[in-house]
């Protein structure tokens, strides 16, 4: 199964690079740079595996099978466009070890480059007319925006950012698209919506686990992760490790420090140490394992097959990732 997936991902890469072609050389180069810089291709991989579950079992799922590569491409284009836009909003210098587009060409160029990828994604919509896939992607796109607004409105506001609010944010920003990748892949493979919905729920659990892991990695040193640490707390984003540490050891001084808009490096260090000393990381790891268990429980509702095994392994891989 993984050899087949690898082949599909290679074809996907070619398709993505073709989508970067533009009349303007600078646009092509900027977009090619971000595509070539890598990325885990989680969303298209999940879509493909879920597609296989349907397409490889036509006797069980006799619905019409559609091509999967255009859907994989749409998902990755949508995701890449959102990363380019996020980098503008966050004023990030680097993405995947490569300088960001807005640092090279300015904010307007970067935002428009992301929009160009959305235009390329639209070219594939007609393939999935009538399947429910296009509607699902439009809904998720809206949820992602609302998740970003929610996060923006809670920056530096510890009172507003409860654990429930945090989970709502990460579901919208991350988990729903991963869930939709599974759902849409399954539909494209001819699976009925009821069973595809089970895969969506699986995807949302591992999407939540994925984001929780990302939030833990932000508290680890840059030597371990390859990325500067402490970015979330620096920007006033309160993630689960911090919220759980504060729950274990409520501390007014820490709350006041966290709510400060301009923190020194020393102050960032104090907050990160607080999280580590009060088990913010360990407690969040427990939540990740709980999500993994829920994801694998969802899969048990579907018949055994190689694709189901692959999804189960994917859940374990994402739980244990170090980068």
């Amino acid at each position, binding site marked *: 199964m993984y050899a087949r997936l690898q082949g599909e991902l290679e074809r996907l890469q070619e398709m993505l690079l073709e989508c970067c072609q533009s009349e303007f050389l600078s646009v092509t180069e900027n977009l090619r740079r971000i595509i070539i810089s890598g990325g885990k291709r989680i969303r298209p991989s999940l879509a493909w595996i879920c597609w296989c579950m349907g397409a490889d079992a036509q006797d069980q799922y006799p619905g019409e099978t559609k091509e999967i590569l255009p859907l994989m491409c749409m998902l990755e284009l949508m995701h890449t466009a959102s990363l380019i836009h996020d980098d503008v909003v966050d004023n990030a210098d680097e993405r995947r070890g490569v300088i960001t587009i807005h640092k090279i060409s300015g904010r307007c160029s970067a935002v428009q480059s992301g929009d160009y990828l959305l235009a390329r994604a639209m*070219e594939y919509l007609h393939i999935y007319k009538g399947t429910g896939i296009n509607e699902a992607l439009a809904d998720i796109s809206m949820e992602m925006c609302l998740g970003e607004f929610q996060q923006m409105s809670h920056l530096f506001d510890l009172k507003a950012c409860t654990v429930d609010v945090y989970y709502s944010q990460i579901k919208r920003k991350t988990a729903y698209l991963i869930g939709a990748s599974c759902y849409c892949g399954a539909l494209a493979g001819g699976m009925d919506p009821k069973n595809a919905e089970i895969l969506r729920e699986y995807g949302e659990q591992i999407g939540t686990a994925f984001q929780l892991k990302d939030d833990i990695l932000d508290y680890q040193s840059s030597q371990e992760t390859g990325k500067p640490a402490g970015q979330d707390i620096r920007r006033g984003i309160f993630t689960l490790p911090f919220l759980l540490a504060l729950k274990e050891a409520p501390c007014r001084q820490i709350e006041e420090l966290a709510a400060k808009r301009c923190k020194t490096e020393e102050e960032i260090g104090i907050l990160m140490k607080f999280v580590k000393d009060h088990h913010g990381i360990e407690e969040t790891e427990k939540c990740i394992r709980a999500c993994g268990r829920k994801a694998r429980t969802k899969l048990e509702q579907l018949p055994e097959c190689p694709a189901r095994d692959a999804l189960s392994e994917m859940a374990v891989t994402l739980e244990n990732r170090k980068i």
Partner: protein
Amino acid sequence: MTGGSLEHQKEMEIRDFEARIDSMLSEGYALWNGFGLEPLGDEELHFVPDRVYFCCSGRHRENLAAACQSFYLFRRLHFMTEAGPEQTTLLGDYFFSSFSRYLIPIDSTRLTDRFSEYLKQDAQEGAGGRRAFSKETYARFIREISGMEELC
């Protein structure tokens, strides 16, 4: 009915149509105001829906107007990034999602392709250095697509 009454009735129909489109996009307009951007005037709110109203008579008219207005605000905002990158980028993305939501139920491959082509050209010119969204070009585009056979 007299000519004056007919004209008044027509005027009322247009205002009703505008009000329905405003209602469909009310969440987006509330977000716009919440971000403290310069308020949208009557012309900005209605020049796109009005054009669709006059050029398209089919059952998709409202969805088309909402899609076109959302697309207009998406493009306008993404050419305004220097004015406030966080708000304009995110709100522009919101209106792109809104555009998608209203476009998809119209279920016209030709229409989707026309928008895709328009966005491709507009976005790459924007990325390549153009710094303003052209209202005139967009107004022409709306007239062309509103007249498409499957929308009438």
